Structure formats: C-alpha cells, structure tokens
C-alpha cells in the first residue's frame, strides 16, 4: 500500500515547552489508525501541524504520490489537497440549515467568484441527500443545525467531512458525548470510510478504539511511544507506566 502522509522528525516548542519532539508517523492511502495518549501527549498539536494551523520548528510533512510538502501550504490549500478535520467539539454552522452546511462542505470549486456564481445542481443535491441518508439526517435537511441534538451535530460534522471527499480524515474524539447506540453508528461510518481513504482517529476511550480494530499509535510527551495492535501496545510496559502512572 502506498504511503499517503509521511511525517518525519517534526518538533514544536511553545514558550519553551516541547509539545512535539522528533515525531515521525506515516499512514497508507486506505488505512485506519487510532492515536491514543495521555493529556498533553501532543495529539491535537499533531493534527494542527498536519492541517497547517501550527508550523513545526523542524521536520517534514510529505503528502501524496507527488510528495508535496504540506508545510509550505495554507490551511485552505491543505484542505483542498484532501485533508479533512473533525474537531473535538462539534463545530457546525448553527445559524444555517443542515442542507446549507452540507452544500458548503461538498467538494466543488472554492474560489470566491466560482462560489458567487454557484447554483445548486440536481446532482449536488442528490449527493447531499445520499450523504444525509448515510448520517441519518435526511429528515433534518431543512432544519437549522443549531436545533440538532449534540449527537446529530457530531454526525453532521462527519457528513460535512465526507462531503469534502478527503483522502485523509483526521477525527478528534468522535465518540465524546455520544450514547452507546450513537457510538456504534459512528464506528460503522468510520470503518466504512477507511475502506477508501486514510482515517486517523484520536481517542481517549479504549473501548471505542478496540471496536475500530486497527493499528494504534501511542503518543507520549510529543513522540511515538509504541505502535501496533491494541493488544500489543497495551501489553507494552512503558505504555502501562504512562497510562497508569509510575
């Protein structure tokens, strides 16, 4: 399997605090990966670097077949290149309808003047309806996103991510605040997505990670502590020390 994203030797320092320390990571083009680690391990900072929000002090982030350097690109360019990100807190546009949210996310031309001349085509509405069906929000399309329940907002955000048709999905704690039923459905959506693209899930909840049934990367103090199956890493003495305290 070809490598989609290759992060090598990145380090970031915030006011003298080393949030990421010589971290290397890679993921294939159709692969699911879970990242776990205690608070402050650098999980969110890692996502910030890949999506262009934070610039590392050193290291390289290489993307795709053409080996593009992501560090030279702006957030929006990276997003257009195919990196989608879901935040921990559901961030949907509450003042707009579910349909508008999805149409905005739908993969299309993004330049201001193309958007100004945009008209909703039957094809686009069709794509949105299929997506809405998938995330269980078909009946809610004309409702304002702000009226949705918390779990529905999470799904809407996942739906918006899928609408972007990214090649790499970065998902930050998708199961937070969801009921067991909703978690199951979220798992199913993510596993389905990982068949055609790379999915990176950051999660605290070990039970959820177990259900994803994928390779796990353990972060600690800004670098990779262990990598492998969940059973493999949880048997690792260092990981046990970090999680359970010394």
């Amino acid at each position, binding site marked *: 399997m070809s490598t989609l994203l290759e992060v090598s030797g990145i380090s970031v320092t915030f006011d003298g605090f080393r949030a990421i320390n010589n971290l290397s990571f890679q993921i294939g083009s159709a692969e699911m990966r879970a990242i776990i680690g205690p608070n402050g391990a650098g999980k969110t900072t890692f996502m910030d670097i890949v999506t262009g929000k934070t610039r590392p002090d050193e290291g390289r982030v290489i993307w795709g077949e053409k080996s593009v350097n992501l560090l030279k690109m702006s957030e929006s360019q990276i997003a257009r290149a195919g990196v989608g990100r879901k935040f921990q807190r559901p961030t949907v546009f509450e003042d707009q309808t579910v349909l508008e949210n999805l149409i905005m996310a739908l993969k299309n031309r993004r330049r201001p003047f193309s958007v100004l001349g945009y008209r909703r085509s039957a094809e686009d509405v069709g794509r949105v309806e299929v997506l809405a069906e998938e995330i269980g929000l078909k009946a809610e399309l004309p409702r304002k996103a702000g009226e949705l329940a918390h779990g529905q*907002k999470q799904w809407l955000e996942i739906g918006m991510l899928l609408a972007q048709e990214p090649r790499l999905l970065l998902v930050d704690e998708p199961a937070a605040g969801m009921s067991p039923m909703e978690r199951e459905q979220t798992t199913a959506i993510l596993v389905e997505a990982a068949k055609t693209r790379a999915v990176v899930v950051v999660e605290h909840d070990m039970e959820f990670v177990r259900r994803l049934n994928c390779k796990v990367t353990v972060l600690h103090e800004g670098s990779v502590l262990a990598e492998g199956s969940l059973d493999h890493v949880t048997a690792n003495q260092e990981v046990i020390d970090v999680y359970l305290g010394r």
Partner: protein
Amino acid sequence: MQRSFFMRNPSVLIFIGLLALFTLLVTVFSEAFGVGVISTSLVKTLGKTLCLCLIAIAMDLVWGYCGILSLGHFAFFGLGGYMIGMWLMYERTKAIVVSSLAEAPLPPTADEIRDGIGTQIFGVVGGAEIPPIWFFADSLFAQLVLVVTIPGLLALIFGWLAFRSRVTGVYLSILTQAMTLALALYLFQNDSGLRGNNGLSGLQNLPGLDDVPQATISIWFLWASAFALGLGYLVAAWVVGGKFGSVVRGIRDDEARVRFLGYHVESYKLVVFTLTAIIAAIAGALYYPQAGIINPAEIAPIASIYLAVWVAIGGRGRLYGAVIGAAFVSLVSTWFTGGQAPDIPLGFYTIQWVDWWLVLLGLSFVLVTLLAPQGIGGLFDLFTNRKTPERGGADLGPDAGSLQEKEAEQ
C-alpha cells in the same frame, strides 16, 4: 432544483415595491412634479437618507454577514463624494470663468481659462495651480470611473494588508478607524489638493443645467438614489442569498472551520470588503450633490461609528434591518438636531434635544445591544416565524446530546 431567486428572498420584492411607492409619493407631493406639499429641502433630506440606507446595506454586508466590524466605511463614502465633487466643482467653475472672460476684448486662451479655474478653486487655500489629481476633473466619465476605482483600490490594498496578516476582531476595527482618521487628517491639509478643511462646495449645481430649478434636480437625485438603493439591495440579497452568503456567514461564526473546509477565508473577506467599499462610494457620490458640500469632517471616525450604530439598532444580519435602522435613526436625528423637537422644561433644567439627542442615541444603542440584539428588524420575526434555536431546559436523557425538554414539547 432551486426555487427562483425572488421566491427564496421575498423581502427583495417587498422592499423594491415599497421603495418605488415611496419614490412615487414623494414625487407626487413634491414642488417640481406635484402638488408641492413636500419642500425641496425635505426632498433632499429624503434623497440623502436613501443614500445613507445604501451605505447601511454595505455595512450590514461587511459586519452583519461577514463579521468584520469596519469602522471606516465612511472613508469610502466620502471618497466617492470627493470624486464626483471634483467634476461638479471644476465644470461649474469653468463655466463661470468662461462667461466672465467672454467680456474681454480678446477671446481667452485655454491657459487663461485654466489659470482662472485654478485661482477660483484654490485661491481659498492660497494656491492657483490645479493639482495633478484634478487631471481628469473635466471629464464626467473619468470621474465616475474614479468614484468606483479609488475607494475600491483603497479597500483592496487596505484589506489585503489587514486580512493577510490575520488581523481580526477589535484590532481590525481599530485599524479601520485609523485608516479613516488618517485620510481625514490628510484631507484637512491645505496642500492635499482637495481644498483642505474648506472641502468642495456648490455641488448642488449641475454644470450646464443652470436653468433647471433645484426643486427638479432634487427629484432627479431622489430617483437616482432610490434606483441605486433598490439595485444595491438586489445585489446584496443575491450575494448573501446563495452559497457565497453561506460561506460568508460561516466566516462570521467560525472562521477556522471555514478554512478547514478548504475556503480561502482572506479572499472572501477581501471580496466582501472591497464590494462594500464600492457600494459605499456610490452612495457617497449620490449623497454629496444633494448635500451641496463635502469636507474632511465628513470622513471623521465618528461618522463610521454612527453607521455601526444605525445597523445595530436596525438589526444586523438582515438587509432590511440595516435600511430601517439608517432611515429611522438618521431621520429622527435630523428632527432632534434640527431644533424641531420641543424642549422639555424640568423646572430646574431644560432638556434641549440638540444637546441631549446624542445621549438618547447612545442610550438606545446600549439598550438595543443588551435587550434586543436583533434590533428593530427583529420585530418582523414576530409574524414571519423565523425562530432562533433555543435549547433551553434540562436534558431528558442521560447524554448531553439527547433531546431537551423544550425541544421535545414542540
């Protein structure tokens, strides 16, 4: 798959209908074309108010929809006025100079006419030379092009610098204030080439139309202002109505999220900022011929702050709110400061509205912001059923995401 534009934006047709009705009524009651109930000065006030409504729409686009609290849009308004004022003043002065030189034994040369115009216009600031920026002043077409391009360019350059360095929120507001203040201070200088604090005057006289009475001209400008306002409303509704509006409102609510969706936020802000600057400039170019005079005090920072107050009181985030706010507040303001409002004697002190109007305005601004953030426009929600999501009440289920009491009852 989409319903037609007017179906989706019923306020556009209603607004244009009301505007046409208003214009017709004013025309019918005017001195020039009708029964003469409405005085020419009132027609001018109404025409000017329409221009203020137009810049309020621009402010609503940039602030209410895009979330950029610009406190500098009156700079563009003033620049638009200056650009048209240059032509008006130059051509009128030229006509005067030509007629006075016509009595001389020899026909005047082009240089003599030019010198005469220079002395007439710039004598007041101690000069006689026509500055280079007046190069196009004898061409109406060129100055009309400048009405759009000069403020547009200023907005483009300013916006590019500000947005590129990701200046947002209150810092951006301060920057826009600084821009308008700097421009006003520059124009106050005598050697700015625009007559310093004297500004440009006599703009109510249209060159070549000396025989047309002001009563008629005022109605022409009322029509032009109404047309521009209707068109501006239409353009604004079109811009915010579709996906572009969706993205722009997204930028207002969560800029970072829009960025991660792949939209280049800075370009969008720049487009909105420049477009609204151009709308403001057109409004200014229609306003000052009705006001008759423009000077740098018009560009002072306070003017742009008033603009924000109008839009806030009218209700930002909806176009008709901005129009209502601008019309209502500026007309009430004219009434209070024009000495027409009766004083209130309290025995020990008499409230004179000329002095106390600003206190009243400030108070209403604070009250609207605190108690009715939707502004006057929010009243329309009472009968159009536009509900804002309210997720009050306790959770009904064990999870944070479950239905809440009030939702379940609906």
